[in-house]
């Protein structure tokens, strides 16, 4: 259903879309039934001359069954939905597959910093490639990310991946994704983060291995790579904190 509106660019996009479709079918069907019964009753039992209302207490078993059976149906369908929802949740958020690549994502008012691991595939080394607001990834590789916030709560959201994760100051939150579609897609900050919240946009560029290599070479050339002093995580995340506190707490 979502795929009509938005491409599926990660492995779990179709899983989440499938869950949404399942829920839509189940609750959509019962919603229609409930509304039809409601409007049917309103029409059928409209006030007419000479016809009195019936006296039904609803306390007898034979009467109560009319609400009991739908009630049991709710329980059964709730169980189906919970089972499906937790299976999807586990796949996306709990079980992290072995990583092919690592990337560090740092949110701050109001931009995204991406630390790409560079040729050696390791973070916190001299060949790290840092970009602002543009994230470069390879198709069909499993990425694990480490999400930080420098100042306030942000939320890393890539609708095309169906991925969303809050970034909380003081925490390193881990997650994963595996891009499956080449192209450029929006990155949003989905948590209110102050005046520039509406401007906190980023883009994820997904390319083939060759394209990715070309991007990285180009970025190194234009000097986006780490300076002589390898930037460390501490420096990255803490720098802004001091600025924030120094700016006064009141």
């Amino acid at each position, binding site marked *: 259903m979502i795929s009509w509106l938005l491409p599926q660019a990660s492995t779990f996009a179709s899983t989440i879309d499938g869950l949404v479709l399942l829920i839509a079918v189940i609750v959509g069907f019962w919603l229609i039934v409930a509304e039809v019964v409601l409007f049917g009753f309103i029409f059928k039992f409209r006030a007419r001359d000479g016809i009195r209302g019936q006296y039904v207490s609803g306390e007898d078993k034979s009467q109560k069954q009319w609400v009991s059976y739908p009630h049991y149906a709710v329980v059964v369908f709730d169980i189906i939905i919970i089972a499906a929802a937790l299976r999807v949740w586990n796949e996306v958020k709990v079980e992290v597959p072995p990583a092919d690549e690592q990337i560090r994502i740092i949110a701050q008012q109001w931009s995204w910093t991406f630390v790409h691991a560079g040729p050696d595939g390791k973070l916190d080394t001299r060949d790290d490639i840092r970009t602002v607001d543009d994230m470069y990834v390879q198709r069909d590789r499993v990425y694990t990310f480490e999400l930080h916030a420098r100042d306030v709560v942000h939320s890393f959201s890539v609708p095309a991946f169906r991925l969303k994760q809050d970034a909380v100051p003081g925490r390193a939150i881990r997650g994963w994704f595996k891009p499956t579609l080449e192209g450029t897609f929006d990155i949003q900050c989905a948590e209110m983060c102050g005046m520039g919240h509406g401007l906190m946009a980023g883009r994820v560029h997904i390319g083939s291995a060759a394209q990715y290599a070309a991007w990285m070479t180009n970025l190194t050339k234009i000097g986006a790579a780490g300076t002589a002093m390898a930037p460390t995580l501490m420096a990255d995340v803490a720098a802004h904190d001091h600025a*924030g506190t120094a700016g006064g707490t009141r």
Partner: protein
Amino acid sequence: MSDHAPDATHASGVAKTYARRRWYRSRDAVTSHTPDATTHVPGFVKKYLWSTDHKTIGLQYMLTGMAMALIGAFAAYVFRMQAAFPGASVPLFGRVAAADYNYLVTMHGTIMIFWVAMPVLLGGFGNYLIPLMLGCDDMVFPRVNRLSYQVFFLSSVVLLASFFVPGGAFGGAWTAYPPLSANSAYSMTPFGSTLWLLAVALEFVAFLLIVIAAVLFMGSVGPLVAGAVMLLLDQVVGTGFYDPARGGDPVLWQHLFWFFGHPEVYVLLLPAMGVVAEVMVVFARKKLFAYRTIVYSAVATGIISFFVWAHHQFVAGIDPRMASLFSLTTLIISIPVAEMFFVYIATLYGGSIRLTTPMLWALAFVAEFLIGGVTGIFLGSAGSDIYFHDTYFVVAHFHYTFFPIAFIAGFAGITFWFPKMFGRMMNETWGKVHFWGTIIAFNICFIPLFITGTAGDHRRIFDYAMFAQLATPEMQSLRILATRALLVTLAFQVVFIANFVYSMFRGAIADANPWKANTLEWLAPSPPPHGNFATMPVVYRGPYEYCVPNRAEDYWPQHEPGGDIAELGAPGGRRPVQQGI
């Protein structure tokens, strides 16, 4: 309340009823009011500013809530105009900067929940109706009740003042997540955030004072008040309760906020459903189906509502394994809520339905809330919430629950009890015009937002130009459609206000029981005098005895002496269990 024939066997029960009721009366000389105390006419100050009459206080809550609704609606008008026509100058406001947009969405949410839904449903209907329905002459603590309104009024003033301080009003969303809300270096609203928090805290104090929905509300609001104190200290004194750099944790606030925030939904849902039930039985001329099932479901909903809060935090950085638990509890709460709606629909079966204005609102509540309820399943199930969290899908879902709670049930209640409150009838034709205009436009406003949310529109964005996938003409046309529908919705409220004001002074005179209803408030004169009843009523039967067979009238007021229901040979007419007083 459902005592029956006052024969010898039950005389003791009736005596007990009186003894209990006396307990509700204050013995204080200032506040006591015997029903025949008509010799003394109080002055303006005593009558309005210092009145301890639950009806005066109730009406003050309701009218203040309605006035605040106009401000909340104006905020919605401005930010929706910006969302539909970014950069354009909005009539009556001007250009909307990013900071303006943020404070407008923040204030819209804060005002509509804390200063509209709560005062109208709890402070207004609760105060006005509960003593009347119980057959009492006032609330238990009339002067505390008065104090609560005064604190509430003060909180409204503080909130409105925050619009005019240097730096502007608080713009960190009504959920006020720290560190954004705790540190003005991040929020850039040094005075706005503190006044916002102070106003909210005062508002809670006011509602702690009116001891309505006490258990549910106090249980949930306690932790929030503690959280608010810590946030206030972070803002004003510079402590670090929510600052990770100094050993604090921002997520703590989220737990405390939502531990309050989700039960709050049900604190407001339950009175709204009560209003709807009272209206439905009267205009369906029908006994409420399976009364006890509703009571049990309401209690179950209240209890379970304490265990669902973290479904707002699935992707907030909590341990992902916790999500399973909260997904489970969230879907479990759908069971008692769905049960209540089944019972409401079943109540219509075999009725004689009159589509008066209050009944239209009551039926619309059921029809619309069902949509809000089922769309909640998408958000309660953790797997799909990853995608839907903080999108316009949430906004649309939320408005399909809260618009029915605050406005649809509110209009049902106001149009239904208007004759009791003011002694005059509202105009039916204009009431129906207002109903259809509002309901149709409301749906056209929020259905497009379900679609934009599903396509990835995230919340609280003042301009989508930065987001290539969202800044498409198709998406923009949906946003414009929603905004136009909002303008229509708002325009139709003028009809309501005109009808309300006109009917208050010029409407047809209403007698004590214009709808031929059973409950005790319809025994009192319209409007009821201070002290409510000329003589304290005696209750002979349950409140929902409509269309009892072998009776000429199709209603049977609770206070009317008469035969036993079982004696009249009504099917299923077992003697009701003695309830309450």
